[in-house]
Structure formats: C-alpha cells, structure tokens
C-alpha cells in the first residue's frame, strides 16, 4: 500500500475495522511516516476527547413510561381481551428479551468464530485488500503459502464451474493464522477460510446466516472450512460441494 492508500485507511485502522495484515502494513508505515502518524494520533485524540466527556444522552424515565403506556393502548386497539393484551405484551417482551440474550450469549465458541468469519470477510472487502497473492492459477497460489503456515491447503480453480479463483491471503481466525482463499461468483466475492481441524471426522456443510451474510462450515480431509459471502445459500452450497468434491 502506498502513502495515499494508507491515509484513506487511517480511520478504519483507528476504529479497529481492519484485518490483521492490513493493520500490520499500516503500523509499519506509521513508524516511518511522520505525517500519517500525526494524523492517526489526532484521530485518537479526538476520539478520546469525545468519550472522555461522555456526551451521550439517556432516555428520560417519563419517555419510558409513555412508550409503555402507548404500546399497551396500541395492543388494546386490536380488541383483544385484557388477558390477551397482557399475553401479547408479555410475548413481545419475551421475544425482545430472547433477542438480547441471543446477542449476549453469542459468546459460545462456534458463534464467536462465525462472528469473526463474517468480520474478516467484511474487512477484506472494506480494505480493498482482498488478496496478498492475486492469481487465478492454483499453482501460483498454493506455493505462496509455503513457509508462511504449517499446513498445506488444497487450492483449486473452479472457473469452469463459474467460481474463478481470485487469489489468497493470510488471515487470523480463532487466535490462529489461517489460509483465506478468495473466489468470485459473478460480482460476489467469496472468502474461504481453512485451518487444521481438531475433530477430524468429515462433516457436511452446515449453513447459517449472520448480519446478512451466508456462512457455510464443514470439515474435509482434516481441515475446517468456512465459506462466507453475500451470495445466496443455494449457490454457496453449490460452491462448497466443489471444494469438498
């Protein structure tokens, strides 16, 4: 990345929105470039000044009461018996509570990884730094990883099936350095993260959607695979079956 590209990304860097590799490049540049280092310090100083003075507003108590009353009236207008009104309110509250719990308890390991997978995907697009090695040639991409990681991922180009290989890069997932392969389906980029599996039994793709992205995970030949894209579930599954041939 050159000086101008770095300058563009300083806010994303200060906001912790970059992937590890881009962040490292920026750190290297900052140690050499006074102008960028000064800018980055100023962003941090401004952020500190804002959080230090906690300018946020809190909802006043009477607003809370008014809304509760309004929601009760709203429920009544649908001509339910008081019992049903209460039940509806309680159900609504329960669903919201469930959502909050869901958001909080998301800390379970599996979900934490999905969270990271999606975040890595978003960052790779955000930083317009999708790949470290840009090549549609599997014989260029695969050797690039030699010596950078302690496992050898399968790298294949699926251009014939409509999923051309774009390249690869190193990324960071669940505290480990992992392989990220990038494919493309029409305009949709697909990130595939590969790391050695702990449980080596083969599993078929398990799909879930998170923040609008589709994620598939499976285990194949002692490797864990995570495929993430804004592509629809059907095509992503089609793609995963190519990888798990």
């Amino acid at each position, binding site marked *: 990345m050159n000086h101008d590209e770095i*300058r*563009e990304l300083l*806010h*994303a860097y200060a*906001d912790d*929105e970059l992937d590890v590799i881009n962040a490292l490049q920026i750190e290297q540049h900052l140690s050499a470039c006074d*102008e960028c280092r*000064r*800018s980055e310090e*100023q*962003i941090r*100083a*401004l*952020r*500190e*000044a*804002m*959080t*230090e*003075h*906690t*300018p*946020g*507003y*809190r*909802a*006043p108590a009477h*607003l*809370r009461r*008014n*809304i*509760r009353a*309004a*929601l009760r009236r*709203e429920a009544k207008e649908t001509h339910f018996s008081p019992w049903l009104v209460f039940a509806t309110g309680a159900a*609504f509250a329960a*669903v*919201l*509570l469930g*959502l*909050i719990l869901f*958001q909080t308890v998301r800390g379970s390991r599996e979900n934490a990884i999905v969270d990271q997978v999606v*975040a890595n995907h*978003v960052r790779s*697009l*955000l930083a317009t730094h999708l790949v470290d090695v840009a090549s549609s040639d599997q014989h260029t991409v695969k050797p690039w990883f030699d010596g950078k990681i302690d496992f050898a991922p399968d790298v294949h180009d699926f251009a014939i099936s409509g999923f051309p290989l774009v390249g690869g890069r190193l990324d960071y997932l669940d505290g480990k350095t992992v392989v990220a392969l990038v494919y493309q389906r029409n305009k949709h980029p697909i990130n595939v993260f590969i790391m050695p599996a702990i449980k080596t039994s083969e599993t078929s793709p398990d799909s879930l*959607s*998170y*923040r*609008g992205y589709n994620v598939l995970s499976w285990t194949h030949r002692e490797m864990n695979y995570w495929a993430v894209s804004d592509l629809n579930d059907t095509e992503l599954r089609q793609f995963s079956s190519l990888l798990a041939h």
Partner: protein
Amino acid sequence: MPHLDAAYNLARFLMRNEQDAEDVVQEASLRAFRFFENFRGENSRAWFLKIVRNTSFTFLKKNRPAEMKVEFDEELHGGQSEMMDPRLEVDHSQDRQTVRAAIEQLPPEFREAITLRELEGASYKEIADVAGVPIGTVMSRLARARRQLQVILSKQT
C-alpha cells in the same frame, strides 16, 4: 425496553431538542411494535435504530424543510478534505456541553455516523445497515465528520 437509550441518544442528536427526540422515539417504538414481524432476527439494535433514524429524517423533512433543504450531497461535501489537519490540537479541557454542541453543528448524516460510532460503539457494518449506505460511505462520512469536529474542538490559537 431494550436499546431505548441508544434510540433516544440518536434521535436527540438528529433532532437537536428534547421534545422532538421524545416524539420520534415514541413514534419509532410504535412502528417497531407494528412491524415486528418484518424483523429477521439478525441485529435487533440496528433494526430498531434504523426505524428511529428513518422516523427522524421523515420528521425533519416534513417539519424543518429549511434544515433539510439542501439535499445532502456526498460529492459536494466530499470535495473538502477528509484528512486531519496536522496543525490543530484538540482541546481536552472542554466540557460535555461543548462536545455535544460541536456534534450538533455537523450535517445530519455526519451526526448520525459519529453518534453511532463514538457514543454507541457501533461497527461500520452496523452503521451502514442503520443509514442504508455502503460501508465505504460510512468510512468517508466518519473521516469528514472527524475532520470538522477537529476544527470545531481545537484550541483557539
């Protein structure tokens, strides 16, 4: 009622007065209640805040057209520098009111991005969902908002 503080905070900065902020949040809560079935269960905070921001902007366009008269123009506002001015030092000795007033001087779209990012700790993706713009736009809005705040909050030398 979850996310009510976040909702009120966003509305308060967008509307710039208590009464309108309360009206907007009340209206948005009713809408959220009515359209709850449309919620797809991904991020309830972003979903609710999106309703709050849409209600706020509708209100502003209808009741304060003068404020919203100049359509927000990414290109026009993008013409000015996104880069921090190396000569300006942010003054830390200012109080909460000054910081609030500084945020209120920004255009509504910048106020929204700064409030969500700095005061609610939202990710770029979340801000993009709430504002209905691409992540790249969020990044440049934040850059320009911070640049303007830097000028407003700098020590007068």
